[in-house]
Each structure stands twice: as C-alpha cells, then as structure tokens.
C-alpha cells in the first residue's frame, strides 16, 4: 500500500463571483505521476498556485508529507520538499546555469546567513548542482549565463533545479509548453526517468504526454474534479469524454 504524499481536501478559491477551484479533492501517492487535465479555465493553474502557497485558499485543507501546510507560506512548503515549476519559464536570467542550480541546493542546505565562504567554490553546493545538471544533460553549459539557453533548455534547467534540491514532490505546470515535438519527447523521457526519485503532480494539455506519463489522472472542469483514476478508467469515462476529451481522443483512438 502506497502512502499519500499530498492530500487535498475540499480546496476552494474564488475570485469575485467566480469559483476558480471548487471543493477539489486530490491525492498524490508517493512515487506516482499524477496528471491534472481539463480545458482552459478549469482552474488547474489556480490549484497549483494554492498548493504551492502563492494563493491563499478560501477553504479546504492541504496535507503534505503528513503535515497540514494549508497556512504555510510558499518558502516553508518548498523547504518541506514541494518544488514548483512555472508555466512561463522562471529562472534567474542574470545568473549562470550552475548558479541557478546551486541556489536550489542552497535552499535545502540550512540557513543562508553565511558570509565566510564563497558559495561558488563550496563543494557542498556545487557538487550536487553539477550532478543534477549531468543528469539533465546541461552540464556542458554550466558556466553559461542562463539567458543564453534555448527555450527547451530553460525548461530542462527548471527540472534540474527541482532535482538539485531535496524536493520530493514536483508541481509541474505545463512543462512542455512551447516546446517542439522533439524537445517534448525528450522531456517525457526525462520525467519518466525521474519517477523513481520524485513524485509529480503534472498539469498538461497534450493528451499524448499525459497518457504516456501518468499513473493516475484527475479531470477538472469549471473548478471541480469530475473524475479521478487510472488512465484507462479516465479514457473510458463517459462524463470525461463528453466534458473534455471529446473528439480529441476518439479521433486518434
């Protein structure tokens, strides 16, 4: 029996009169890739922001690694092991590729009120950072300014940062957004390879990607979860077909 790493109960958030998320229940088991799908405006990104602590929730509860984190600020959740990647690439453009990764290591290496040693020559930081870059395949570009990377490499760097720190759950908001077919396929391989190390909550539009990666799928429509289960169950679910998958899957099925 696997353990629930993340448990979301009846989570809601309204903006004015619009319920962006409406009584969302969700469980991510340890070691699984859990995909959240749904049409635009279904509240997926709001959900991620609530989980990561960037938006306060109106009601409901978030339990992460056995702790109620509903009221914890973003940085505290991240220290417990939640890593969020952003829909639009969010890295430190002014810093080098290695520096970006190094910061992720540093975030989990105790407090940073340290003035004595140079961070860039501190092997306790650089070694794990380089290891993560090796794994992602960016080690050769460690010294480059992050600004100089291609779009696909930026997304890879984000994954490297999530790997470098001691994160246990990755919240991935459309990690393939804006990628070409080839880059996207590489990313799928990469994420699949990471499954043994990290649990993931994945928001993705591309159904091929979702069905290639996900152990379980939750479907959101208008802020509500309408179905949750194994990919085959979701594919077969009449409600889901009607509400969302529609032509898209019946076409290539």
């Amino acid at each position, binding site marked *: 029996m696997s353990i629930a790493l993340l448990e979301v109960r009846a989570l809601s958030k309204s903006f004015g009169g619009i319920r962006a998320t409406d009584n969302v229940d969700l469980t991510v088991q340890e070691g699984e890739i859990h995909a959240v799908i749904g049409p635009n405006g279904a509240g997926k990104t709001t959900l991620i922001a609530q989980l*990561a602590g*960037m938006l306060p929730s109106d009601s409901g509860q978030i339990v992460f690694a056995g702790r109620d984190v509903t009221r914890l*600020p*973003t*940085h*505290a959740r*991240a*220290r417990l092991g939640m*890593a*969020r990647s*952003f829909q639009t690439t*969010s*890295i*430190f*453009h*002014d*810093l080098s590729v290695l*520096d970006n990764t*190094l*910061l*992720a290591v*540093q*975030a*989990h290496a105790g407090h*940073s*009120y*340290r*003035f*004595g*040693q*140079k*961070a*860039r020559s*501190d092997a306790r*930081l650089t070694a794990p950072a380089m290891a993560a870059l090796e794994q992602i395949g960016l080690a050769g570009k460690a010294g480059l300014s992050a600004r100089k990377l291609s779009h696909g490499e930026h997304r890879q760097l984000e994954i490297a*940062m999530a790997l470098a*720190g001691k994160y246990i759950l990755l919240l991935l908001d459309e990690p393939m957004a804006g990628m070409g077919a080839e880059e996207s396929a590489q990313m799928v391989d990469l994420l699949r390879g990471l499954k043994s190390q990290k649990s993931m909550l994945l928001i993705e539009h591309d159904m091929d990607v979702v069905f290639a990666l996900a152990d379980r799928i939750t479907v959101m429509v208008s802020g509500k979860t309408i179905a949750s289960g194994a990919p085959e169950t979701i594919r077969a679910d009449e409600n889901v077909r009607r509400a969302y998958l529609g032509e898209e899957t019946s076409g290539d099925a």
Partner: protein
Amino acid sequence: MIAVLLALAVLPAVTGAFDQPFLLDLALRIMILSCAAVSLNLILGYGGMISFGHAAYMGIGAYAVGIPAYYGEYSGYIQLPIAVGAGALFALVTGFVCLRTKGVYFIMITLAFAQMAYFAFVSIEEYGGDDGLVIEQRSEFPGIINMEAELEFYYVVLAFLLGALFLVHRIVGARFGMVVQGAKGNEARMQSLGFDTFRYRLACYVIAGAMAAAAGWLMGNYNYYFSPEMMSWTHSGELIFMVVLGGAGTLFGPVLGAIVLIILEEELSGATVYWPLILGAILVAVVLFARGGIEGAIAMLERRK
C-alpha cells in the same frame, strides 16, 4: 581600480610635497561618499532595492557624532557604535515596512522615511533645528589614533573605504549574497525554491544602513558639523547617481562614480551655474548607452582587447 586605490594611498605624500591641501580635502570627501555609495550599491546594485533615502543614514551617522559631542562625550568607542547601531535600527524598522512593497512604491516609501527623519531633526531645536550644530572636535580614540591630525584621519577614512569594499565583496560572493542576488532577479522563484526572501533582503538592507551610517559618522567628523540637510533627498539622489554612473552591481563602480561625480561638480560648478544640467545630460547618456556604467564600460573594453 587597484591603481586608483594605490593613488589614494600615496596621495597625502604627493599633496604634502606640492603643498596642495585642497586635493587631500577633495579626496577625503570622495572617499567618504564612496563608502556610502558602496553601501547603497549593496542593496541597489546587487539586491535590486532602489532606496531613495540612503542619505538619511549618513545624517544619522553624523548626529551620532554631534549629539554625544553636544553633551561632552567625544569617545569614538561610543560614537561609532551609536552610529552603526542607530543606522541598523532605522534600517530594520523602516525596511520592515519598505520591503513589503516593490518597484516605484519601494522608491517612494524609502524617500518618505528619509524625509520623515529629515523633518524630525529639523524640529529638534535643542540640536540646532534646521541649522544643525558645529562639532567641537572629532571622535577620540585615545592612544590609538588622533583623528584631529588630517593625515591620520585620511588613513582612517581610506581604511573604512577598503573595509566597505571588502565587506561587500565577501557578502556578494557568499551564500547570503547568492540569495540576495537571486531575489533581485526573481523573488517569487526564490520563495518557491524555499527561501524566506523577505528576511534575507531585510538583513541586507540593515547591513547597508549600518554601513552608510558609518560613512555618515566619518562625514560628521570630516565637516565638524551636522545638520538635517545631510539627509536631504538631493543627497540620496547623488548617491544613486554615483552608483549608476559608476556601474550598479559592480564592486568598484560606486567608487568610480563618486570620483567622477565629485570632480565634475567641482569643475563644472566653477565654470557655469547650469552645471546640474550637464550632470543630468551625462546621467541620461550613461543610462542610454552604457548600462553597466564606467565599470561596465571598462570591462567591455578589456574584453575587446
């Protein structure tokens, strides 16, 4: 830049030989303002915190000389810690509020706090109101250094400048500096990595405030005088000018900026009453064509070689 620092180190011998005390005086002013600019650069250049109230800390430092002296207390062992402590405290309290805002709001609120300090001291008649007061003598460090001797004071100031540069160099290279620089680029990302950016930025703000107050302590001693005018927003603007002109986020940039600004002021104000106009034009040119300031331009030329 090493050459500039060496020149500053041997300057007293040269000015002594050629009997040019005016030059020494100019160098002193440059170095003291450099100290303040270096501290501003820590938050503005490296931390992205554009404080428009940095002169307030210099004023606080000067009052930390003047007020104890007014009561007959001249010991530097008391005055300097008061300056640094008061600067740090003012930064802690105001930073706690300021750092909850961003962008132009941050600029305006730092300005507002500095103006509050300015008017607070204007209203205190006991210490001269808006005229300020004369300080009878410089801070005393009996048996160690006699700051009344111009040459000894000069080397004290130079030591402070080197100390400020060393401090900033260490801070930005260390883990603490990595966090501050990361938060400059992308604060939300830093939080999602697990950093409580507010606290780190506040700590950085306090360090810079304490450093600027130490520079103000030097300034009070240099002028034998303190007044609220030192806290005026025009002086805060000058400090920003130095940092941007020299190169924000470069170690030596603020020193170069201070040298160029003060020498230009000296020369231009003698030549024409419209000198601020020329300074303004120079700043516009730097911002448009040389984003990295003087230090950035030097680095670019070196790369081309």
